[in-house]
C-alpha cells in the first residue's frame, strides 16, 4: 500500500476544504465590511472571541452543507483492503487517499468526520429550539402568575432535573422503547409547543387586526403541520426530509433533558422583568396577560436567552455525543462524532488515528459555540 507524506496529507486536506474556505471567506469579508450596519452581530464579529466563534461555526456549517463535495468517500462505504489503514494510505481502485486513515470497518475516517457534522448540525440546534419553545411557553406563566401554576411547573421541572441524564437516556433512548408509543407521544408533545407559542404570540398581538392575524395563523398552521407530519409521523408530504423513529427519539430525549433548564432561566428572567414599570404600564392600559408576557417581557429577555441558547446548543451537542458514545439511539454505522469516538476508543491501544478526528471535531464545534456565547454575553453586558 502506498502512503502520502504528512505534508501532502495536510495539503490535500486543505484542498478538500476549498469550497468551505471560500464560503467562509465570503461570509467573513462581507461581515467585516458591513459590520456597522449589522447591529449586534457586527459588534460581536469585531471582538476576538466573537470572530473566532463565528469562524469555527461557519466552518462546520459550510462543511455540513458541502459535505458531499468535501468528502472523497461514502461515509458508510467499506473498502476491505483499507481496514485500519494509517493516515495517507492510497486506495488502489480510485487512487484517492484515506486522508486520515481507515477505521476498523475499513471506512474513510475523514469522510465520516465530514458527514458527521450534518447530523450534529441538524439535531442540536433543532432540539434546542424545541426545548426553548417549551421553556418559554411554560416559564413565562410560571414567573408571571406565580402561585399555584409556578409551584406545579417548578416541581415538574425539578423532577426532571433530579433525573440523572444518563439514566434518562438509557430509559428513553433504548431500542425497545421504539415499540411503544412513548417516543411519539413525547415528540408530539414537544413539537406542539412551537406551534402553540406562535399561535399565542399572534393571537395576543394582532387581535385588533383580523386580517393580519388570519394570515399569520394560517402560515403557522401550515408550517406546524409540515413540521409535525415530517418529524412526528415521518411522512413529509413533500418527501424532502426523512426522520427515522430513532432520530425522533433523540429529539424528544434531548428536548426533555434541556427543557427544564431553559424553563428555570425564563422563569427567573420573567420574575425580574415583571417588576419593571413598563410592564405595569401595560397592565394599566388593560393588556391581556399573554400579551404582556410575549410582547412586553419576552423581547427584553432575549439577550440572556440568546446567550443561553448558544451555550445550550453546545451542551446538546455534547449530549448527542454522549448518546452516541453509549450506543444509544444512533444506528451503529452512523458517522456522527459520538458514535465514531465510541467505536474507535475501544481499539485505542492499537490504532490512535480513528479516534482523534471526531474528538477534535466535537471539541472545536462546541468551542465555537462557547466562544460565540462569551462574546454575546460581553456585548450584552456593555449595553
Amino acid at each position, binding site marked *: 500500500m502506498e502512503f502520502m507524506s504528512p505534508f501532502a496529507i495536510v495539503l490535500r486536506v486543505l484542498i478538500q476544504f476549498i469550497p468551505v474556505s471560500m464560503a467562509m471567506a465570503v461570509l467573513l469579508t462581507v461581515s467585516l465590511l458591513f459590520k456597522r450596519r449589522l447591529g449586534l452581530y457586527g459588534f460581536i464579529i469585531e471582538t476576538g472571541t466573537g470572530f473566532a466563534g463565528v469562524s469555527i461555526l461557519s466552518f462546520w456549517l459550510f462543511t455540513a452543507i458541502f459535505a458531499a463535495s468535501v468528502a472523497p468517500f461514502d461515509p458508510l462505504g467499506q473498502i476491505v483492503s483499507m481496514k485500519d489503514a494509517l493516515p495517507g494510505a492510497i486506495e488502489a481502485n480510485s487512487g484517492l487517499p484515506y486522508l486520515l486513515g481507515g477505521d476498523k470497518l475499513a471506512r474513510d475516517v475523514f469522510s465520516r468526520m465530514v458527514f458527521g457534522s450534518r447530523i450534529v448540525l441538524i439535531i442540536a440546534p433543532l432540539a434546542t429550539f424545541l426545548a426553548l419553545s417549551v421553556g418559554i411557553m411554560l416559564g413565562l406563566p410560571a414567573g408571571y402568575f406565580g402561585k399555584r401554576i409556578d409551584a406545579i411547573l417548578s416541581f415538574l421541572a425539578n423532577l426532571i432535573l433530579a433525573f440523572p441524564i444518563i439514566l434518562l437516556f438509557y430509559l428513553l433512548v433504548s431500542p425497545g422503547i421504539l415499540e411503544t408509543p412513548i417516543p411519539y407521544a413525547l415528540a408530539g408533545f414537544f413539537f406542539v409547543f412551537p406551534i402553540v407559542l406562535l399561535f399565542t404570540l399572534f393571537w395576543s398581538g394582532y387581535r385588533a387586526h383580523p386580517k393580519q392575524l388570519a394570515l399569520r395563523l394560517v402560515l403557522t398552521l401550515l408550517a406546524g403541520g409540515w413540521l409535525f407530519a415530517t418529524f412526528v409521523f415521518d411522512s413529509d408530504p413533500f418527501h424532502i426530509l426523512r426522520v427515522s423513529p430513532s432520530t425522533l427519539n433523540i429529539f424528544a430525549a434531548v428536548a426533555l433533558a434541556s427543557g427544564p433548564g431553559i424553563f428555570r432561566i425564563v422563569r427567573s428572567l420573567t420574575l425580574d422583568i415583571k417588576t419593571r*414599570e*413598563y410592564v405595569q*404600564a*401595560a397592565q*394599566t392600559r*388593560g393588556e391581556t396577560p399573554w400579551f404582556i408576557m410575549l410582547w412586553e417581557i419576552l423581547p*427584553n429577555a432575549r439577550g440572556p436567552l440568546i446567550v443561553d441558547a448558544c451555550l445550550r446548543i453546545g451542551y446538546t451537542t455534547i449530549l448527542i455525543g454522549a448518546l452516541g458514545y453509549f450506543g444509544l439511539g444512533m444506528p451503529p454505522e452512523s458517522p456522527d462524532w459520538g458514535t465514531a469516538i465510541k467505536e474507535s476508543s475501544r481499539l485505542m491501544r492499537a490504532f490512535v488515528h480513528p479516534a482523534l478526528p471526531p474528538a477534535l471535531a466535537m471539541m472545536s464545534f462546541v468551542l465555537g459555540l462557547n466562544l460565540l456565547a462569551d462574546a454575546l454575553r460581553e456585548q450584552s453586558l456593555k449595553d
Partner: protein
Amino acid sequence: MVEPILDIRNLSISFSTRAVEIPAVMDFSCQVMPGEAMGLVGESGCGKSTVALAILRDLARIGRITSGSIHFNGRDMAKLSEHELRQIRGSEIAMVYQEPMASLNPTMKIGQQLTEVLFIHERVTKEQAYARALDMVKAVKLPDPERIMGSYPHQLSGGQQQRIVIAMALLAKPKLLILDEPTTALDVTVEAGIVELVKELGKEFGTSMLFISHNLGLILETCDRVTVMYSGEAVESGPIRDVFGSVRHPYTQGLFRSMPLLGTNRNSRPIIPIPGQLPLPHERPKGCHFGPRCSHFVDGVCNVSTVAMRSIDEANTHHSRCMRVEEIDWHAPPEAATQTEATGAGPVLLNVKGLKKYYKAAASEFFGGREARTVKAVEEVSFTAREAETLAIVGESGCGKSTLAKVLLGLETATDGTARYDDTDIQSDPIERRDTKLIASIQMIFQNPFDTLNPSYSVGSQIIRTLERFGIGASREERSEMMLNLLDLVKLPRAFATRMPRQLSGGQKQRIGVARAFAGHPRMIIADEPMSALDVSVQAAITELLTTIQRQSRTTMVLISHDLSLVRYMADRIIVMYLGHIVEQGTAEQIFAPPYHPYTEALLSAIPLANSLAKKRKIVLEGEIPSALSPPSGCPFQTRCHMKSKVSGSLCEQVVPPMRELKEGHAMKCHLPTEILDQMTPVIS
C-alpha cells in the same frame, strides 16, 4: 494665613473610551479650609463625583488626570506612592457615599468593619479598637451599640447603615470628610436626622467637609461655602451667603428659579425651567457650556473662547464663570413669570370611603407551611377628588400611597370600603373586568423614567399601541397622526417617534410617559413620584408640562410624592399618610400652616430649604419607620412622635386616634388636645 486642607487647582480629568477621550472635569479649582464645610452642587453628569474620587486617587482605570493638581494638607496627591496613599486613605481623608447598604460588606459584622479602620492605621489592641469603635457608634446616636457592633449590615435600616458608614469614616479622625450624596437614598425624615448628625459631628471633631449634593437646600443647611458645577466645570463659587443671596451665574440663577419655593404655588409663582438639556460630554458647545440654554446668551461673546473663572468681589471670595457678569441685571424679574388664575375645581370625580387593603404575607408554595401574616397596607382611608383638582398624597416609604394607587388603577382590589369613580364603584374591579373606557380614563405616570418605556420598541409605536388599545383612531394613519400630536403636546420633536427609548434622556422619557398617559383623554391621572428620579432643572420642565396639560384638559391629578415643596407647588389639597393611615388631610394652605399633625410638622421641618432668608423650627424624629408587617399598637406614629409626652396617660399606645375635623376640610388623626394644637407656631417663617 491659614493653609487650605484641600487645594484643587485647575484640575482636568478625562475618560478614555474605545473611540475618543472624553473630558469629564475641566479646569476645576476649589479650596477647603480647616474646619470648613464646602458644598459641591450640580446635576447628574456634571462631574462632581469624579472630582471626589480624583481627590482619593480612585478613578476607574479609564479615567486620568490630564492637568492640574490636588494638594492635600500641602502634599501633592499625584506624587504620593501607593504606600503613602494608603496611609492617607481612611485616616486623613474618608468618604461616605450614596447607597449605605452597598457601602458595607454584607458578610462582615459591623464591629469588624469598624475596628478594621483602626487596625490599618494605628497600633491598637483588640480591646482598644473595640472600645473606640463602640464610642463612635454611640457618637452617631445609634440605639443599643453593643448589639449593633455584633450585627450584619442587612439587619439595620437604611438610616442606621448610613450612620455606621459615617462612624466608620470618622473613626480615624480624618482631617477631610467627603460626603457624596449621603442622604439621597433615604426618606425625608431620616435624611433630616443624618444631616443634623453630620453638622454636629463636623463641629465636634473639627473635620473639614466636602459635601456633594444635587440639592441646593441641603447644601445651604450644611455648608459654609459652595461651588456650583455644570457640565464638567465649576461655574460659580463663594460663601453660601453670597451665592444664595446674590447669584452671579445664569445657571445657578436658573437652578433657583426652577425650584418651587415653599409658600408659593403654580398660580402665584410659576417655576421657570431651564430650557434645553445638559450637553453630552463629547458634544459640549464652544465657549460657555451653558450658552445654548442661557437667556443672557450673546452670539460672538459667549461662544468665542473658553470662559475663565474670575473673581467678582473685592474680598476675592465669590467667583463666576460668566462672560457677562457685569452686564447682566441680576435683580431683573424673570421674563416668563406670569401669574395665572387658579382653575376652579369641578364636581367630585372620585369618592373613597373607608378603603382598606390587606395583604397576606405568606409565600405559600407547593406545601404552604408558614402562618399567614396580614400586612395592613392601607387602613380605612377616606377622601374625595374633584375634577381639574390636584390631590397630593404625601408620605415616606411604606406608608401605603402606592398601594392606594394600585387599587384605583385596578391592579389590586380593595379588601373593604368603597371607591366611587364618577358613578361606578371601582374598588373591587380588577383591570381585566374594567371596560376600555374606564381604563382609558384612569391612567398613570410612573416614577422611574428609565423603566417606564419598553426598551424593545420605538417611542412612537408604544404610544400608538396605547391608542390602539383604547380604541382611539380609526386607521393606522390616523393613530400615527395622533401620536405626532401627542409628541407636540409634550414638546418633543416629531422625529422622536422612531427613536428607541435608550436614545432619550431621562426627562425626554418622562415626557413620553406623560404623552402615553394622556393618550386616551383620561379624566384622572395618577402620578407616582413623577419627578423623584429627575434632576432639578428637568423636574421643573416636567412639572410645568404637567401643570399646563392639566390646566388645558381639566384632568384630575392624584400626585404621589414625598417632596413637600413640589406638593405645595402642585397640589390643591393634600393627604398625609403614615403606615397606611391618613394622619392629616386638608387644603394645601391648611396643611402648611398650624395646627399640624406632629408627623406633618416633622415632615415640614425636614424639607431642605434653598432659601437663605427662611427660618425653620428644627424637629428631628427619633428612630426609623416601623415595618408594615408589625405596626405599633395604638397611634401608628406613636413610636417616633415628639409630642407624645403632651398626651396624658398611655392613650397613644393603646388607641388609634379618630379622624377629627378641625376646620372645614381640615382633619387629622391625633390625640393632642385642642389647646396644644392651637398653640403651634409655623415651622417655616
